[in-house]
């Protein structure tokens, strides 16, 4: 899932600025599951903004609504009237949701209420960890299902480096060494010889380094029939 975290109320207040009529838009997908921007969080942020604006002497009219998926036009269309009626939209979607609103409603000023952090999973109640860097050319088949691009601090393809100690990364004791994990898993499965193959420099064009990415599936496109 996409994992996000709420911005501080101070930053949200400053982003909303002097706008009087505010719509907080939550999202029912990833950010709901990671407790950052679902309907519950949207209601709390709206209430907090209302109270804060009252205390600051300029009460705002703050309402909230949550759509199933902020990253699809059809769900945004359902709240188009509410969006059109306010001075500003505070999106509690991920960065994709914020941009979907900006793209779909050219006359609406939208600001982010979340910081989109990473693609990951909950490892325990209240803890989320990064798992995928969306590099566009998956190498998990070479590394026992553990991604060094996302999980090694140096994204090494021929690790581990000399900073691996006691199972953790030199950067922090909180970061497990991805290459120790890879080594342990390949060892336990009798496949450690895979690590002796030199992995060539990665083609980063499939990652962000090739510019913004796009997928076109001709088999799925709705092409107008030619006369």
């Amino acid at each position, binding site marked *: 899932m996409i994992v996000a975290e709420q911005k501080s109320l101070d930053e949200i207040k400053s982003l909303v600025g002097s706008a009087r009529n505010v719509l907080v838009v939550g999202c029912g997908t990833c950010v709901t599951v990671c407790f950052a921007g679902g309907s519950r969080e949207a209601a709390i942020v709206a209430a907090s903004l209302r109270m804060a604006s009252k205390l600051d002497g300029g009460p705002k009219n703050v309402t909230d609504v949550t759509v199933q998926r902020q990253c699809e036009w059809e769900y945004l269309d359902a709240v188009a009237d509410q969006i059109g009626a306010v001075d500003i939209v505070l999106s509690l979607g991920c960065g994709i949701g914020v941009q979907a609103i900006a793209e779909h409603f050219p006359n609406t000023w939208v600001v982010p209420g979340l910081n989109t952090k990473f693609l990951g999973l909950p490892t325990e109640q209240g803890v989320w960890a990064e798992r995928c860097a969306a590099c566009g050319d998956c190498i998990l088949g070479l590394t026992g299902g553990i991604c060094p691009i996302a999980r090694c*601090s*140096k*994204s*090494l*393809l*021929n*690790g*581990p*480096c*000399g*900073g*691996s*100690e*006691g*199972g953790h990364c*030199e*950067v922090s004791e909180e970061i497990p*060494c991805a290459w*120790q994990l890879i*080594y*342990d898993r390949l060892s336990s499965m009798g496949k*450690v010889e895979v*690590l*002796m193959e*030199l*992995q*060539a*420099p*990665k083609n*980063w064009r499939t990652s962000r380094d090739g510019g913004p990415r796009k997928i076109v599936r001709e088999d799925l496109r709705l092409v107008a029939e030619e006369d």
Partner: protein
Amino acid sequence: MALNTNGNDYLVGSNLERVLRAGHFAVTGELGPPQSADDGVIRKKAALLRGYCEAVNITDNQTAIVRMSSIGAGAIVVQEGLEPVIQMTCRDRNRLAIQSDLLGAYALGMRNLLCLSGDHQTFGNHPDAKNVFDMDSLQLVRMVSAMRDEGIFQCGDAFKGQEPRFFVGAAAAPFADPLEFRPYRLAKKVKAGANFIQTQLIYDLEAFAAFMEKVRQLGVHEQTFILAGIGPLKSPSMAKYMKDNVPGILIPEALIERMNRAGAPWAGKSKDELTKEDKKARSAAWQAEGIQITIELIQQLRQIEGVAGVHLMAIEWEEAVKPIVEGAGLYPRPVVPLPETQTA
């Protein structure tokens, strides 16, 4: 052995390569560039190291703190009549920048290269920086070997003219984790093309001997020159700090105890009771012991089959190199001339 463009059988013909190939026990030093544009610092350090080692490593923004560039400082070291080993990390440059910088380094007379992944930038003085890590150290070793032996850029295009020819080195951390993989990782670096290896600091000879035994079983010591990393301890607290905080460094209690004993005459006094002279004398006693320990370690390392030399890291204590090299019976350094009519 591939012939180089000079027609002799050296890969490069650098002083370091010549001394190692002649079978001498080699000594490399280390010179950390300043956090300034001051060339005088480099010249002063070079004067302390000249004649006491085959070549000196010039660190590349070591510990991710911005310093004069390795290649810039290396050019000054060449002027000072000392041979540099350029350190190149993958942290700050992508494959374009690495290759173009190495073309410049070769043109400026540099002939040895140590390929590193690089300390993470969060350790340094610009922790907010974006890192690069386009390649890793093994890929870098492979790339520079192919530049020399196949005359190609990383993309496969051939050089238009002189190819850069470096004697290619890599690092080894014998005591980092996973411990049992370390000899194999060394073998992998050699397979990628490492002509020489410099290890992390060695203080625990028993552990290092066990590592080397495994390395010999893999036959790797016959395919590369392994220089054991060594560095004089300056004080007991430095020893304790490294033992507790630097990954992959093992320091036996007995060595820390030796350092403590060297400071024993002052041990009974509290901080306030110690005069300036006391502190100076204690520091000198610690340093003398640190140098003596280093000399003994070198003599013991020489006995380990497959150790081709030592890499002496006396960072910000270059004065220690002379007494260590002399004390270990490694002075004067051997002179191995290139065959006549051939130049490196």
